[in-house]
Each structure stands twice: as C-alpha cells, then as structure tokens.
C-alpha cells in the first residue's frame, strides 16, 4: 500500500527532477514565474554577465506594478528617476530575453498576483515561484506557490528549477458558517493572530474546511496571500468546481480536448484522506469577528470589540518589549477601544484585497454615505481589468460619490514604493497585508483590516465595526 500523501507532497513529488540529499533537498522543476520591475533587474544582469539564456521564456510573464504612479491619468512616465530606469531596463530585458511584458499602458497590467490568475496563467497542480513574497496567492487555485529572492529568480530563469528543501506541512481547517459581515480577510488575520508572525515558518499550509470552500476563489486568494505573514513558505488548497469555473475560458486556459484532460487531472488533486500533517490548526468560523491590527506586526491584532492590549499582561519578556515598542510607534494607549481610533487616511488596494469582489463589498458599505471630512480615502484597483469592470458595474461611481479617489492600478500604498507615501504620524485604515514600521511611509501608522472595514472607517473617521453598516446585520 502506498503511503498516504498530502496535496503539497503530491505536487512536489511530481516536480522533483533529482534528489540532492537524504533530508529533503531536491532540484524542483518550476512551471511559471511572474517578474516585476524591482526584484528582477539584478537577476537579468546576472544572466547577461554569465552569458546565459532564459531556459523557457514562455514560462515567464513580466508585469510593471510596484513603482508606477496610480494617478487617474495614466502615462508611461514613472514618478521618479529610479523607477523610470527600472521600468526601462525591465522592457530591455523583456525584449532581449524574449519574455512577454505587460507594460504600464497595457490593458492587462496590474498587480502581478491579480493579473496572473486573471489571465489563466496559474493552474491546479503547478509549481509557481516568483520574486514577491505574496506569490502564495496562487495556492487558492490549487498550485504550490511561493516567493523567492533575486538570486533564485536568476536560478529559475537559467535552469527552470530551484534548489529546494521540502517543507513541513500544516493544515488549517476552517469550519462552520461565519457570522454575517465576516470576510476571508478576518479569517486569515485570526489565523495569524493565533499562531504568530512565525507560526508557519518552515511550513507549507493547506487550507481546508467548508467555510473557505463556501467562499469564492477570490476570497480564498486573500487567505493564501496573507498566510505568508505567519511565515508560511507556501500555500495550497485542493481545487474544486469553483476553481475550475474560475479558470475556464481565461486567455491562457487550455481549450477543447486539452481542457477536458486538464479538468480530469485536476479532480484528482487533493490530500489523501489519511494523510498526516505535521501540524493541524482548527478554527470555528463562528468565533471570528472583524479584525484590526493595533501594532507593527500582522500578529499584533484584535477584534473590533476589543481594546488595545496592556503589554504588562504579556508573559514573554521579548514579546512584552515588542508590544511596548509597537504601541509607542503607533501612538496608542493600552485600554483604548479599537473602535474609537481616529484615522487620517483610508486605503483600499493591494494583492490581498483589490479584486472586483473586494471593491463590490466596500462599495456596498459606502453606498449613499460620505467619507468623513478629515479623511483622505483612496481606492486602487488590483488590475486595469478590475478597474474597467468596476467602472462598467458602476462601482467606481459609488467610490467617487462617497469621496474616494478612484485610481489606476498598482501596488501603490501597500508598500509605498511609488509616490503614494504617507507622512510621519498619518494613520491609515488599510486593506493591505503589512503594518510594519514605515511600511506606508516613514513614521506612518497602519491598521490592517478588510476592505469593508476600511470603507466603514473612512465614513466614520475612526475605526468602527462594519457589521452595523451591513443590511440584515
């Protein structure tokens, strides 16, 4: 009898070119990469210096997303000279190495993790590795996906492989119906709060349970994207009919007889019933409330009905010091109700939460309401296609009517590598994934939450419970 295997192990086994030691080090075949303008240039320079070619240019896509402006009027000029040089070198590399490029003026441009699924470039059973930590997104489509650094991008481009150490496996099962108004963002933030910012370090996480399977593929992408904030080195979910329906008919999806064969093979992609995981975590969705971070690490989070914690209750000395430092940076007093913290900015965007469903959900909260006077509110669609769709559906108008700035697509204020930068002391309700010190601008303060929670905070001028905005809640 064969040893039962997890989905992660099955996919990795099917991509193992050779074994390199007896402790799980392998040469791993990688099916795809997506390249961006800021982590790839040195990889191409490395290839040029060594006189090497790209192994399979068709297995890569280049997308401009990190450094571009998101101003309403789109041009091919970057906000600064460094970004301009990066984008120019990016185009030069695309041309010289024969890789397809979605440049800033392309109708298919957007955040790489929004664009690749949109194009049907990611399929169940694939291994995808790319130069951005949030590559874990593609786990929602049944691929094993993970971020890599620039040296490994170069290794991938030259060899179509990576020297890879097999990970331990963790299954996160979320079960039961969530309360009204709870999003997948709240669920993943709860997971991160429970296991900590390094709780999944060294693990590939498989998400399971009826709660997530009742949710859309886009909602699952949010969960897979953000689990990297618990240190997960890969994420995966067994593909179901929703995933297959999501991929069907997309520009790069297989067609005809090949589609039928592909679907047949995708139906087999799941962990064996008795497969053993190195760690299991079970979450009852009914216990999840809207989540907000109060600190400078994604695990420093609380529910909307909580107060800012008292660091002295933290038993671990290192954690206590970190909590004190975080509260000092965030300018918060212990005991302050989370649902009273005033904001100066509201940001909806990022690979975590900028897809059409995210925008629909936030727009529903905003419908007929206005952004508070002292708040600057910005929405940056995840891709140019999402932007166009939102305009067609009339969602953009709801944002504009409420007082949000309706922007062009890009990573924008999630990491503030372009000109969307906050000032010291600014406090932002943000649908992004990292609340690190200085992430959205030196001295700026970030509170992570769902897009609907950002919309609600924008309206009230302070962090607030979105559930009271929900009809039927």
């Amino acid at each position, binding site marked *: 009898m064969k040893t039962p295997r997890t989905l992660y192990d099955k996919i990795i086994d*099917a991509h193992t*070119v*050779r074994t390199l*030691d007896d*402790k799980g*080090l392998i*040469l791993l*075949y990688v*099916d795809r990469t997506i390249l961006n303008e*800021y*982590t790839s*240039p*040195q990889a191409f320079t490395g290839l040029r210096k*060594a006189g090497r070619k790209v192994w399979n240019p*068709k297995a890569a896509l280049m997308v401009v997303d990190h*450094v571009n402006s998101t101003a309403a009027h789109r041009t091919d000029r970057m906000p*600064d000279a*460094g970004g301009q*040089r*990066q984008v120019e*070198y990016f185009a030069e590399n695309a041309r010289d190495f024969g890789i397809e490029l979605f440049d800033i003026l392309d109708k298919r441009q957007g955040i790489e993790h929004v664009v690749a699924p949109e194009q049907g470039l990611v*399929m169940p*059973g694939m291994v995808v590795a790319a*130069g*951005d*930590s949030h590559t874990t997104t593609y786990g929602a489509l049944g691929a094993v996906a993970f971020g*890599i*650094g*620039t*040296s*490994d991008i*170069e*290794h991938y481009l*030259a*060899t*179509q*492989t990576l*020297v890879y150490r097999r990970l331990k496996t963790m299954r996160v099962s979320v079960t039961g119906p969530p309360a009204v108004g709870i999003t997948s963002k709240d669920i993943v933030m709860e997971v991160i709060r429970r296991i900590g*910012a*390094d709780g999944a*370090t060294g693990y590939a996480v498989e998400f399971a349970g009826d709660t997530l399977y009742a949710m859309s593929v886009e909602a699952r992408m949010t969960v897979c994207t953000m689990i990297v904030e618990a*240190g997960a*080195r890969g994420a995966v979910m067994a593909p179901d009919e929703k995933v297959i329906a999501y991929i069907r008919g997309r520009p790069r999806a*297989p067609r005809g007889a*090949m*589609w039928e064969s*592909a679907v047949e093979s995708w139906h087999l992609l799941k962990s064996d019933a008795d497969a053993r995981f190195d760690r299991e975590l079970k979450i009852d969705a009914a216990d999840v409330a809207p989540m907000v971070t109060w600190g400078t*690490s994604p695990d420093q989070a609380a529910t909307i009905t909580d107060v800012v914690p008292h660091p002295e209750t933290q038993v671990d000395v*290192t*954690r206590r*010091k*970190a909590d004190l430092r975080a509260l000092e940076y965030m300018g918060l007093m212990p005991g302050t109700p989370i649902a009273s913290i005033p904001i100066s900015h509201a940001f909806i965007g990022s690979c975590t939460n900028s897809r059409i469903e995210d925008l629909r959900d936030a727009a529903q909260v905003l419908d007929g309401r206005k952004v508070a006077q002292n708040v600057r509110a910005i929405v940056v669609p995840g891709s140019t296609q999402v932007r166009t769709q939102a305009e067609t559906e009339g969602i953009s108008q709801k944002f504009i009517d409420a007082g949000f700035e309706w922007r062009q697509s890009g990573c924008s204020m999630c*990491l503030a*590598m372009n000109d969307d930068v906050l000032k010291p002391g600014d406090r932002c309700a943000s649908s992004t994934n*990292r609340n*690190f*010190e*200085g*992430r959205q601008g*030196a001295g700026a303060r970030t509170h992570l939450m769902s897009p609907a929670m950002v919309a609600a905070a924008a309206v009230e001028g302070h962090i607030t419970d979105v559930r009271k905005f929900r009809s039927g809640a």
Partner: protein
Amino acid sequence: MEPFHTVTGPAAPLLAPNIDTDIIMPKTFLKGVDREGLDVGAFNLLRFADGKPNPDFVLNKPGYEGCRFLVVGPNFGCGSSREHAVWGLSQLGIRALIGTTFAGIFNDNCKNNGLLTIVLPPETVAMLAHYASNPERNTFTIDLAQQTIFLDATSEEIMFDIDATRKDMLIKGLDPVGVTLEHADEIRAFEALHKENQPWFF
C-alpha cells in the same frame, strides 16, 4: 560569492522579534537596477536620524565599529522577499547572523549571498546576546569548517549545526546556477515527460 572560512570580529545584539526586511532595507533604497550602494540603506531609519548617525542605535555605539555578526531575535528577516536586505547587510560588513529562527525567503537569500545564518536554541542565543551586548567582550570567531563560535571573552566554544550542502556552497563560494546546469540533460528529460503528462502547462 565570497567564500566563508574563519571570520573574527565584533558581534552586536538586535533582539526584537520579527525584524522585517522593510526595517533592514527601507523602500527608498529599492530603486536600483544593480546590487551596489546598499550599505547606507541597511537599517537606515534606525541608524540615522535627521541625516546624522543615531547614537542610540547599537551599531553606532563604541565597540561596534566593524561589526561582523548580529545576534538577532526570532523570525528575523520576515516580510518582503527583497534580496536588497541581504545585499545591504553584506555591504555593511555583516558575515553571519545568529538567532533562533529566520524567515524562509530571507534565509534562502542569505545562503545565495554567502551570509551565514546560524540557528541555535533560545538559551544559547540569549548567552551569546549577553556577550554581544557588552562592547568590551563582544569579539567572536566563527569557523564554518569546524562549525564553531569561539568567544574571546571566555574562550568558550559553541558548536552549531548546518546542513552539509549549504556548508559546502558557503565554504567554496560556488555559483549555484553553474552547479545546477551540470544537470541540464536531466532537467530536459524531466521536462519532456512533464509536458507529456500535462501539456496544458506549456
């Protein structure tokens, strides 16, 4: 890649948990197309205040000039995949990091750039942090071949584990792409079979 043999120098403590790559290399230093000039970027917002060295930051204090090692808190290097963080640390002169856990992508980036990461139990890291915190007793010698950290202050020798492949790459300063390309025929054969099984991937 600079091979790692035996390195001697001061160690500094940076013990907060979850020191992320945004802190190690802030976004303003990510606008290059090469790997150069990143020493000034490393810990920039902590090292400098109003354009001048911040006297409160450990690397600016007496006894930490020419620092070669950092004793770090758990989950060091979490967050963004930016390899600029590792390039910056190397350009600052850091040759090894000692801690309880390192974030995955960051750890791989270190390996690919000859920056040694040493994982030890919390009590050993705490002991090393104790010496690193005293600028008069913070000289360590790391011998990768012997897998030892030697403390000048006490003449104590601490052993560490490292996987054999990683050790070999670091000591020889090998080009990983070149090593893999020795198996190009095997990759091609695998690829042909993979394409036969899943033509829709290609």
